């Protein structure tokens, strides 16, 4: 009788890139629905434009690299990039801005670095930063969240579509009537004008924690993120460390001077903190890989976000923080190599 000799791993994980990406997409659905509810149907048009151009760019570059376009398109990674980019941009964005971001994310940030698995930067964030720098004026138009006061107009589906296609609002509607400064902007300019945090937070758009609408989207994002944690698609290190990196300095500063530093709850629910912690920073390709490394990487992102929000010139700093820490990943991974049994901490064999 012959014994079958097998070698580890005995149980191969039945996780494909496609199923992973689909579950990430599923986890984003509730937040996307909340986004449409609060900020109007522009999200859907942006998503369509971003997906078409991300998938198109993927197919184009794969055929240029003489690979099969199907393999790149059926792993849905381009779609995840498109969705994350759509979450980052305002719901009123002209289509060419979204298209530039999506194409840049897929073609330059992903494929010029070697394709999925080789990109050192998070593609969605590269796309976002490029359009933020190339079209600064177009990315300032956040529509007012639906919150029941009367001094702003909501756009119908057709009007939103018209804006997405032409980049101009219908006659008779001014930008000021539909758009609002985001809570982060309000906080930043308010503090700059020497208002106290309590005064700023009494403005209705600031909501309970991080701004009306925003905090609800944050809740749904957190739900999706927790689901990903339970399904073991992401691990707890990065989300926890991003939260720590942001909340610890925020709490200390708030305790020192509660009138000129925003409370930690505002930092947690305002802007893109939760999206970053669960969905952007956890990108398996561009994040650090060892458990200790992931903690350092997440902490770094949180601290940089806090610094940019408090002392930088941009209202939110998620994209810049993620890209900066992406650059640090090779060093972090090198310095936090786990201890291998039978070897000392430098990886040398024990004598």
């Amino acid at each position, binding site marked *: 009788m012959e014994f079958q000799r097998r070698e580890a791993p005995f149980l191969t994980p039945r996780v494909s890139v496609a199923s992973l990406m689909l579950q990430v997409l599923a986890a984003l659905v509730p937040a996307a629905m909340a986004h449409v509810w609060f900020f109007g149907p522009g999200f859907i048009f942006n998503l369509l434009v971003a997906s078409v151009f991300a998938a198109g760019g993927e197919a184009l570059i794969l055929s240029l690299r003489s690979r099969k376009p199907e393999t790149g398109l059926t792993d849905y990674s381009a779609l995840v990039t498109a969705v994350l980019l759509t979450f980052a941009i305002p719901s009123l964005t002209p289509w060419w801005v979204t298209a*530039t971001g999506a194409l840049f994310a897929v073609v*330059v940030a992903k494929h010029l670095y070697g394709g999925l698995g080789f990109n050192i930067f998070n593609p969605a964030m590269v796309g976002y930063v*490029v359009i933020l*720098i*190339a*079209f*600064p004026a177009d990315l300032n138009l956040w529509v007012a969240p639906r919150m029941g006061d009367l001094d702003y107009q909501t756009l119908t589906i057709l009007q939103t579509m018209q804006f997405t296609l032409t980049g101009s609002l219908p006659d008779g509607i001014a930008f000021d009537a539909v758009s609002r400064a985001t809570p982060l902007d309000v906080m930043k300019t308010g503090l700059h004008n020497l208002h106290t945090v309590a005064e700023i937070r009494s403005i209705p758009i600031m909501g309970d924690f991080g701004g009306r609408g925003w905090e609800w989207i944050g809740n749904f994002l957190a739900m999706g993120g927790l689901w990903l944690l339970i399904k073991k698609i992401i691990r707890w290190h990065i989300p926890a460390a991003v939260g720590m990196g942001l909340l610890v300095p925020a709490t200390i500063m708030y305790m020192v001077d509660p009138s000129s530093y925003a409370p930690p709850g505002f930092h947690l629910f305002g802007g893109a903190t939760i999206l970053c912690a669960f969905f952007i920073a956890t990108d398996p390709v561009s994040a650090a890989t060892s458990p200790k490394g992931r903690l350092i990487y997440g902490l770094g992102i949180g601290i940089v976000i806090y610094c940019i929000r408090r002392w930088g010139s941009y209202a939110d700093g998620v994209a810049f923080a993620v890209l900066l820490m992406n650059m640090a990943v090779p060093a972090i991974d090198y310095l936090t190599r786990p201890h291998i049994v039978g070897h000392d901490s430098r990886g040398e064999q024990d004598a």
Partner: protein
Amino acid sequence: MAADLIERFKIGLWRDNPGLVQLLGLCPLLAVTATFVNGLGLGIATLAVLVASNALVSATRRWIQPEIRIPIYVLIIASLVTCIELIFKAWFPELDRSLGVFIPLIVTNCAIVARAEIFASRNPIGSSILDGLVMGTGFALLLMAIGAVRELFGQGSLFARMDMLLGGEPMHGIVLAENGWLFLVLPPGAFFCLALAIAGKNAIDQRRQTSRNEIPRRARRLNR
């Protein structure tokens, strides 16, 4: 002789292009190429300095002590750059203001020191002048190309403000759009344009190489 000349130009403009292949003088290349006219202006200035410095270094190559050659090259180049700077200030004051510190900084352009060290210090005057001419032209053409691309996509115009070089009324050039892709006018755009230019050159070279290799292979197959 004519074939030799063409070969030298091919080397300067394409095979050993100072910007694309030797990657020398990248600081001014990245800093001033936001518009075509800036690229052209700095290209001409660099070309003039390069030709003159190659001629002077080559003429004095027998008397320069090898131990202190680099300081002497820098002295020669610096005096030439001062002349060019004064000429620019006198005849193209606006262009001089637009290029700012990058005209005096031609002194530190490593493409010029490199040509003095590599070529002019060991070749006769005529050949050295020719070398300065082809290398300077290659560098200037690259500056102009990147300047044109960045201006076209970054501002939506081409050949704007050529009056800084030609004189006369302020010119707007060919205006295709009111505004453009701001990203390209900013410093990262310069890096992207240069990287794409280098990648494009490498791709063309590679394609030529493979097609050159393929012809004999096909011939072999036919012979079999």
